[in-house]
């Protein structure tokens, strides 16, 4: 499973708690209320555990977590 699919699955299952939810890859996850403070922390922990990627604290910012595409491209560009 590629990173993007794994991220989408995690967000749907663990954050939105709805496997059948529609999740646009460009959707603004924060403004749409999908991600809150704890969900971001969960997502960071998931990325570290699943992909073995440690995201520096300074990189945990809106721009990198804004959407699935933003997060995927951040992970690809920096790791």
């Amino acid at each position, binding site marked *: 499973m590629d990173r993007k699919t794994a991220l989408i699955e995690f967000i749907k299952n663990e954050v939105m*708690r709805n496997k059948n*939810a529609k999740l646009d890859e460009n959707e603004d996850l924060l403004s*749409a*209320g999908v991600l809150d*403070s*704890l969900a*971001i*922390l*969960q997502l960071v922990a998931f990325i570290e555990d699943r992909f073995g990627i440690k995201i520096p604290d300074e990189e945990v910012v*809106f721009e990198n977590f804004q959407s699935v595409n933003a997060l995927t491209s951040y992970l690809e560009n920096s790791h």
Partner: protein
Amino acid sequence: MIKRLLILNGLAAVGAVVNHAVVWELTAIFYWTNRYLPPDGLTYDQLESWRLFSVRLIDQLVIFAVFAFLFISGYFIAVAAGREQRSIAWKLVFHRIKFLIIPYLIWSGVILTFNLLQGKTYTLSELIKIILLGGASPPYYYVILLVQLYILSPLLVPLARARWKMLLVVTGLLQVLTLAAYYAGIFDIEMGRLEPVLVVLRDWHLIGYAFWFVLGMVIGFHLHDFRPVLIRWRWFLLCGLVLFFLIGFIEWNVIRQLAGRDWISPQTIFFNRVYILFLLLSFVAFEAMPVPFATLFSKLGPKSYGIYLVHVIPLEMAARSLYHIAPALLAYQFIFIPILTFAGVGIPVVLMEIMNRSFVRRYYKYVFG
């Protein structure tokens, strides 16, 4: 550090439950002694006993809970604001508040329904006041406080970015003013015309607690600058943490005795606020230090709001059940408090798991946040 915030949140969730279990322990100490002491046992004879001081010690360990929640919420605002945005979107604030308010209304409704079933009555205006002020249960003041801070956050973000020192000083001074108002209340000092101001300072939690939210925001925005300083001073922070833990503990008892009170809220003690500050900064500074039961606490972290909202119900049920079924246990603090804590954390977590595994799990956020 980010992952440690999840652990801190879990620790704070358990801390909040212990903090409120202490209230029931005090009830057992002061009002329920007839259930476990001989008939001639005086109700207040435990006032200066080891039991009171050990419960205070337990309380001292966990009084950081709400301050940690506020710190983490403030840090999140910094994350949500990002590097380039001038502030955070109102839409984000709206969604955040939505998932705070709806669960809050549900659980306030549950508590009020329990109260009605027990014969309590409310007028419509009383109900409105309870909902607006978080009055269904004493810990619910936190929800109203957090909502106000989120509403203010779009205005605070530019200040936390550009004028963070001023913002910290102003909110810090407001906190000191609030503590002064608490002290005036503890010592029954009449302030004449200033009395209404003191009432506002004491009752409007936003004034005294904003500092902790702002601190989280400021550290979030300026982590790059703060981190090396905090790491360099980490041993100083740790020493300060231990020192102020003790000073706060002593100050509480001195003030309590001088004021002739049985109990005063430890959160209203100046040096306890200093101790909590050192604790949070130490948590950031010692980011590589492992936390015992880190996995457990990081699993509880995301459930913290649900635990916070629900725990008051199982706490009360467990305490009252023990009063009726096993009153002898009320005499044993180190059994009574763990049972309450286990119920206060365990029952909400079980309820959350049941909902999470049910066909209505998509509505989970509306019930537990």
